[in-house]
């Protein structure tokens, strides 16, 4: 059963949130959905680039109250 995991990278600067996402991916299953929370705008731009480059499924980015939510699905 696919899970949804929250990766809380709030307060950390680039590339901290990306690294936290990668750590979380290591312990995730294919099909799991991960949502990264980041207060760093650079990471909000950079993490989707990484997801696309590496070949996972990028789902969405939204922003609310200064926090970016970047959502992806692990595909491999």
């Amino acid at each position, binding site marked *: 059963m696919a899970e949804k995991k929250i990766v809380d990278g709030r*307060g*950390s*600067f*680039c*590339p901290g949130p*990306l*690294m936290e996402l990668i750590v979380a991916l290591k312990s995730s299953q294919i099909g799991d959905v991960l949502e990264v929370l980041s207060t760093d705008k650079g990471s909000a731009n950079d993490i989707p680039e*990484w997801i696309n*480059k*590496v070949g996972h499924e990028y789902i969405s980015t939204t922003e609310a109250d200064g926090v970016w939510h970047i959502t992806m699905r692990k595909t491999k």
Partner: protein
Amino acid sequence: MSASKICVVVVSGSLERLQMAAMVASVGAVSGQEVMVFLSMNALPYFVKGNTSKAPHEGEMGRLMATKKVPEFKTLFEQAVELGDAKIYPCSMAMDILGVEQDGLENYLQKATGLTKFLHDAQDGQVWTF
């Protein structure tokens, strides 16, 4: 594996340069690129076990970085190895000058390497110098 290997040469002991080198190495490695790092000159002492001294900043960015939650450069280098399979080589000449042996360096470093081998391994890669 992406086309060109990333070879990072770090000789500076300044916070900004160590940070940027660590970012290139870690992000490159976790993006599927082959990464090798060569640590020499003023960069190497920070990788001696037990050395807790802080790298001095060169300018305003480094001063500001130290006040914010920026990942530490040593953490990023270690993550480059653990998450991205980067290889970090301590310069054998710098080790001789410092008088440090392999077991005195952080465990995530590879065995001491000389310039001849590094240059040979780097000849088909892109070289980034900090």
